[in-house]
Every structure is written in C-alpha cells, then in structure tokens.
C-alpha cells in the first residue's frame, strides 16, 4: 500500500475515522501484570525481544532501523518516505505484481513507514503461514528491486498528495511552524519532500539509502505471538542475517527549538487553531518523570487535566485542548494545542497562558500528584500493550530508547519516587520561557 499517501479522500475515511479514533480503547496487560519479555539472539547475532503468546494463532513482528528522513541527502528530501512505499513493489525474483499476489495469498500484512529518526516495518501473519510470510519479508528487507516503474508510480502518487495539500491552511501552517522552530536543521525539512526534490531521486539513491540504513547493528526487533524462541532465532537469521553488518549513517546534530516567537497564519476559517511550544526535556534527564507528571496534570490525556477543566469544562471554549511532551532523537518540546471559536481565541490563549504561569509559579498539589501517578502507572499498559501489534511496537521502542528489558517492571517505582519539588522544578524549567505561539485562522481581534 502507500504509506506516503497523506491525502486520502473524504470518501474513504473521513467520518469512519471518527468512529475508529474513539473506538480504539483496548485489551491489555497492565504494568503490574508480568509481560514476560525474552531476549533472543540468533547465531548471526541478530537480537529481538519476544513475548510468546498462543491465545490467538497469529504473529506480529515489528522492526526499526535508526535513520529516517534526517538521512535524506540535501536536495533529495522525501527519499526515506519514498523508499517505504517500495518494499512490496518487487523483491528478489518477484516483480511488483508477483510479490503482492504471493503476499496476499500468504495472508500476511506488511507495512513500512518513515519517521524523522527511523524507518519501521511490521508484519502481521497467521501462524501457520509463517514460513511463506517471513520468506517474503526476507526478500523485501534484503533484496528490494526498486524497479523504475514502481518508483515512478509511487513518486507520482506522493507528488499528487503534495499538490492536493498545497492550498490546505493546516498543512501550510505545519510547514511554516517547522521552519520557524527548527531553522536550518534537518527537522525543518518536509518529510515527503517537494516535487523538485522527489524528481531528483534516482534508483541509485534508493539502493544507497537501503544499503547504508538497513544494517544489523542498526536494527531493533520486537515479536509477539505464536512462536517460540528457538524458532525465532532461525527466522531472525533467515530474514535479517544477510543484511550488512554495519550501517553508515550521516551524523545529525542536536537542535534547540527556537521559541519566543509568534507565527500568524491568517486565513478565513470558522475556527482558530492555537499551538504553543515550550522547552522540552530529554528522555534520560533525571527530571524527565517530574516533567512527565507535570504535563499530565497540565493537559495530559484525560478528562481531568487543568487545561481541559478551564478551557472546555468550565467555559465551553473548545472541544479539545491538550499538552504533550515531544521527544525526538535530537530535539524535545512541550506542545499545547487547541482549536477554539475565533471570536474567543484571544481569551482562550490568555487562559492557557495563565494556566501555564500558574503551573510554573506554583507547581501542583499533593492530591494532584498522587492522582497523576496512579493514572500514569495504570495507563501505561492500556496505551502501549493492548494488542499484539502494540506490544511489538513497545518492544521496539523500549530497545531504541535503551530503557532495559525490565523497564516495564521498574517504571512504577520510578514514577512513585517523583516528589512535589521535582514536579515544581520541572514546571519552572519548562514553562518559564516565552513560548513559540502559532495562530491559524482569522486575525486575533486587537492583535496579540
């Protein structure tokens, strides 16, 4: 399929998605229930984390290579995104059509995607079709053909998406926001490229990217389902064992998001979107969990946050308002966003800034902290371990974050140990700075 097709038409998804977004509350393994993770290392040294489970006769396998769109050469932006559309478009002896027919017959789903920092792949298969499914994954990962015809077709589809979004104010705003925040860092570039940069990408560029990024020392694998460790060892060697040993990644430097600026994207819309960016915090910072709990109380994902109460519940100014910590490999931020009635947008912005100030000045109460701890301890599993696919994703994320195979067991104690003072310190550190503010919609009355 085409993970690159950002522009899907109304007819396919629009309202269905509404249903789905809100229907995905899940089955789970709570943090306290043991998720038994085994570390499996193949003969050739390919490592994977495995959760063995035979309840349903399926296997979910997920993997990632470090190096996403930040590895796109300058002038060839969109390469990482383009390559993710081509792994089911011909591999080994099979051309595009032959490969897709075999994959369909095997009853397997295979997907690839690129983020800024990595390329991910996933396969979900029926356990009794494992041999054929993983045989196809092996050639997709190791011997993609990059035939000219599929390259041209996928490039044309991505360009069609770019053209289709060219007058969308939300998209224009997102592009402007990244440039304003990240300046000339790779994070400021457009993941899917532009018509010109896509035109510059050759078959050879794709081969080079594949060779440089798809390497064993750069690979993280998570597997869940009806497969045992010994079998998995053999399969890991079959699928990944012939990849080059070492990746060749271009160095990417850190970037401090540029805050203290206002970006107005003036557009005649019936609603105004507000986005505020504050400094973030690194994942390995001792104050990370203090900041994490602080963010949850300020605007985290429940119906109980301060922003939810002040903006939505008390005043009915917006349907959604939230804050979140963003952590990329080379940058971090705390981002607040909402969409509000245009004639009240200035009020909403003021209320948000007042709440931020209240948090920066006064931290949180003991009751708030206790409730937040309970929530984030219990919710981990519901958010991250609900289905086989989600568990395999979590297994990969934990490895990429170098958090340790016992992280899920340790996490509760780490969160319990956070003090009121740490939360207050995190609030001061993140929320005292002047934020970057983006307003998308009609001009704010009286300016800001």
């Amino acid at each position, binding site marked *: *399929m*085409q993970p690159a097709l950002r*522009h*899907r*038409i*109304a007819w*396919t998804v629009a309202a269905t998605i509404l*249903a789905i*977004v*809100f*229907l995905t*509350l*899940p*089955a*789970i393994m*709570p943090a306290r*229930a043991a998720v038994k993770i085994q570390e499996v290392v193949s003969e050739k040294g390919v490592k994977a984390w495995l959760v063995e489970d035979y309840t349903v006769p*399926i296997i979910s396998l997920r993997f*990632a290579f470090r190096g996403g769109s930040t590895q796109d050469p300058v002038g060839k932006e969109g390469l990482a995104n383009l390559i993710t559309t081509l792994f089911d478009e011909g591999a080994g002896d099979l051309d595009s059509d032959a490969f897709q027919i075999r994959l369909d017959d095997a*009853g397997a*789903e295979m997907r690839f995607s690129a983020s800024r920092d990595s390329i991910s792949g*996933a396969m979900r298969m029926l356990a009794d079709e494992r041999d054929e499914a993983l045989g196809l994954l092996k050639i997709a990962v190791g011997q993609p053909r990059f035939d000219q015809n599929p390259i041209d*077709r996928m490039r*044309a589809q991505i360009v069609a998406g770019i*053209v*289709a979004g060219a*007058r969308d104010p939300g998209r224009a705003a997102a592009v402007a926001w990244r440039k304003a925040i990240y300046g000339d860092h790779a994070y400021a570039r457009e993941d899917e490229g532009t018509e010109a940069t896509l035109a510059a990408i050759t078959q050879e560029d794709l081969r080079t990217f594949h060779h440089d990024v798809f390497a064993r020392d750069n690979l993280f694998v998570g597997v869940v389902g009806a497969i045992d460790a010994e079998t998995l060892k053999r399969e890991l060697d079959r699928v990944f064992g012939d990849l080059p040993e070492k990746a060749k990644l271009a160095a990417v430097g850190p970037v401090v998001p540029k805050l203290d600026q206002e970006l107005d994207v003036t557009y005649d819309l*019936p*609603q105004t979107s507000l986005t505020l960016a504050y400094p973030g915090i690194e*994942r390995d910072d001792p104050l990370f969990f203090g900041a994490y709990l602080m963010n949850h109380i300020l605007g985290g*994902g*429940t*119906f*109980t946050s301060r922003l939810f109460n002040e903006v939505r*519940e*008390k*005043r*009915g100014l*917006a349907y*959604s*308002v*939230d804050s*979140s910590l963003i952590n990329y490999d080379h940058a971090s931020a705390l981002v607040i966003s909402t969409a*509000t*009635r245009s004639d009240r947008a200035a009020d909403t912005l003021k209320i948000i800034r007042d709440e931020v100030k209240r948090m920066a000045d006064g931290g949180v109460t003991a009751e708030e902290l206790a*409730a937040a701890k*309970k*929530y984030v301890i219990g*919710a*981990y599993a*519901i*958010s*991250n*371990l609900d*289905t086989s*696919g989600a568990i395999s*994703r979590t297994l990969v*994320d934990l490895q990429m*974050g170098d*958090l340790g195979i016992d992280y899920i067991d340790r996490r509760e104690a780490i969160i319990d140990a956070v003090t009121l003072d740490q939360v207050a310190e995190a609030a001061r550190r993140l929320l005292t700075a002047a934020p970057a503010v983006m307003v998308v919609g009609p001009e704010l009355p009286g300016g800001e």
Partner: protein
Amino acid sequence: MTNNSLGFDPAGRYTARATDVFEDRGMSHTGRARALLLALSLSFGTAAGAGAQERSVENGVSQFALANGMQVVVIPDHRAPIVTHMVWYKVGSADEPPGKSGIAHFFEHLMFKGTKNHKAGEFGAAIAAIGGSENAFTSYDYTAYHQTVEADALETMMTFEADRMRNLILTDEVIGPERDVILEERRSRVETSPDALLDEEKDATLYQNHPYRIPVIGWMHEIEQLNRADAVAFYDRYYAPNNAVLVVAGDVDEATVRRLADKTYGLVPRGPDLPPRVRPQEPEHNTRRTVTLKDARISVPSFGTSWLAPSYTTDSDGEAEALDILSEVLGGGTRSRIHQELVVRQGIASSAGAYYSGSLLDTTSFTVYGAPRGAATLEQIEAAVRAEVAKIVKDGVTADEVEKAKTRFLRSVIFARDSQSSMANIYGATLATGGTIADIDEWPDRIKAVTAEQVRAVAAKYLDYDRSVTGYLLPADQAPN
C-alpha cells in the same frame, strides 16, 4: 455514506497514548486493514431472542438477560487481568425527533455530568485513579459508553454506569457550556473541513426521506436550540435497562458478570416498552443527482458516487454478504480492480476504490471514489471507475477473485480476536441493532457461501447510475463537470 460515529473524547493526537515512550510511529491503514474494519463493523440479522440463553462455541461468548430486560454479553479473554466494560443503548441520531438533530450526541456528552449520587467528574476520577480509560460514542443507530480497567474494578464501573442510567441531574448550568463545546466540536469536525461539509450534503441528497440524511452531530442551527427539556425527554424515553446491552470482554467469567450485573444494573427499574424502531423509509429513487462543493482549500478535484444498498439488517438472502465481496473485488485495496486499473496500469489516479458498510439498521450505501494524478482529469477518473463497474455488471467477477476476497475476510476474523475492544465492539454493535451472537458465529460460513454470480447480480441490481448521487469536491477556480 460513511459510517458516522462521534466520540466524546477530546483525544488529541498525542494524548491518546502515554507519551513517555517516544512519538507515535503509526502506520497508515492498508487495504487489508480496511477489510478488517469492514468485518469489525458488521452487524446482522433478525430480532434478538432476549432472555434466551445462547452460547458461541468458537469464542466462548455467552449471552443472557436480566429480569428488567437488559441484555448481557460476556466475551472471555484471559490474556491479561483487564476488562472492557460497555453499555450500548439502542438509540442513535436516526431516532431523534424532527427538528432536534444532534440531541443523541449532545445527550451522550451530558452523561458525563453529575448524578444524584455522584458529583460531575467523580466517575472519571475513579477511572483515572486506576489508570483506566473511558469514552463514549454516538452513531446513527446506537450510543455506547465504555471503560477499560483492571478486572477488579468491574463492579465499580457497573455501579457508576448503572447510576447514570437514571440519576443524571440536568440543569441549565451544565447544559449551556456543554452545548458550546459541541458547537466547537462541529466546527472542528465539519465546518473547517470541505470534505466533511460535502459528505454531509451528499448524504442529505442520497437519503430523501430516511433520517440517515441528517448528520449524527446535528445541523448547526438545530444544535444551537437544543435545551434542557429536549435532553430530559430524550433521557426518559431511551435510557432504561430494557433498551440497553451490556458487553463485558476480558478477564472475567459469565457467573461473575451475572452476579455483579444483578447487583447493579439489576436494581434499575424496567422502563416503558419502546415501540419497534421503524423510521421513515426511502421512496423509490428515479434520478441521478450531483452535489458540488468548490473550495479555495482544494487543489486536486475528487469525486464519490453512492447508491442505496441493503444492509445486513434489511437483507435476508445473502445480498449483504455479496455486496461485501463486491466492494472488496471492485475497490477494496491494492489488489482490487479499480486500484490495479486506475492507479497501477493506467497511472491516472492518486487514489481510487470502493467501500460498503453493511452494519446499519436500515438501508445503507455502496460507494466508489477517485482522484486524478498528474495530467489526468477528474472526468477521466470518473469514466474509468464507471467502466470497471460496467465490466462487473456485464461480465461478473472470477471465481479466483471471489475466493481471494473471502480469504481476506476470514483472516480478518482471526486478527480481530487479538483485540479485546474490537471483539466487544463487534458484539455490542450487532446486539444493539437487533442481531444475535449466532449471526456473528455464522458470518464466516455465509461469506464462504457467496458465489460469483451473486456478486454480479448485486452489482447489476444496485449500481445503477440513473439512481445515484455523485459528490464533486473541486478547487474554487474549476468549472463543474
């Protein structure tokens, strides 16, 4: 028509997941995932035998009824000590009184306010305190409330949920701000989206008489007028145990659910008997209609053509199953005829396909869609899609195509078992639209029984362009077709 459903959640992109482990690296849906969703949204059949004991051998699912008429379904899943608890009410936007569009969804929001026994927010706080999640959604045919929590908390969830079934305190003080929230929700979902605006008016054209012509969220001018009296009337009419289905999926057994349900929901008095859900039905359609929206935010045109078609509930002789196979063969994913011909072989479309949602209580719809890429025009895409439809009507589909489509549906049934919430939703939606768990069990066999000739026959019978509605979404400066 899209399978419209609205949730309560403000669900931000980032807040839906705990964010201490990196960004969401989600992947886009593939055709296969869409087939799965189709399977998930199925609902079926005939009147439910309330009170009858049924047991699904395959999934260990059981069903019974409480003395006050509340139906109960238990779906065991012992992989983790967690339960998904849902209450489905057999009322949706298509049951609203004329002029009160949006009241079903508005009322869903009001269910999160205070009751005689609990202040507003107490239920939410109790869920948050154990790291649980909660939400609710409203659709044309049902409204559902759900929590996912550790298994030990099931009784607490039932106690709160049973309480708000009858004890809400509805005052103007809580209704005013919540109506403003919903107006913002409508602006977010619809007013800011040309796609959604066109979809609404296309549905209003496709359905000439049935309330599916009205959006689930309601029309702006009618939402603005909804008031306390409307909410109370709606509550008193529809929120009662004999109009509800309890679904519990997870680490629990039937006896426990029965005991806890008797202690909680069992104490709520039976409400007045509701008449059968008979809505105004569609008259004969005799015209080809078009709906066009031009918008400055659009740079590539697109179209979608819809026809009325029977749903699993209105159909009794396998047409719904055949329509599912038809949508898969014609335009269900990358192996489908439309995709292969328009996107791959001719290279004229950026996307194109077909879908059918058979899960509605009344007559549903079948849709084909497409958008051009490169130098191709919208007219070309529309003609090419139409040619694929005509080819099937004339020559039918191959046995191989039918077999492959069947295999994908049957596989999706196995994959669905991996998700507790998906299972709960399948059973809840089915029961709330009058189906039975036997319908769900038998669906794979009914899919297996579909023949190539039945697929051709439903295409010929329903995909008649002289009785269709086409929506065009065009750039502001493009001349209409």
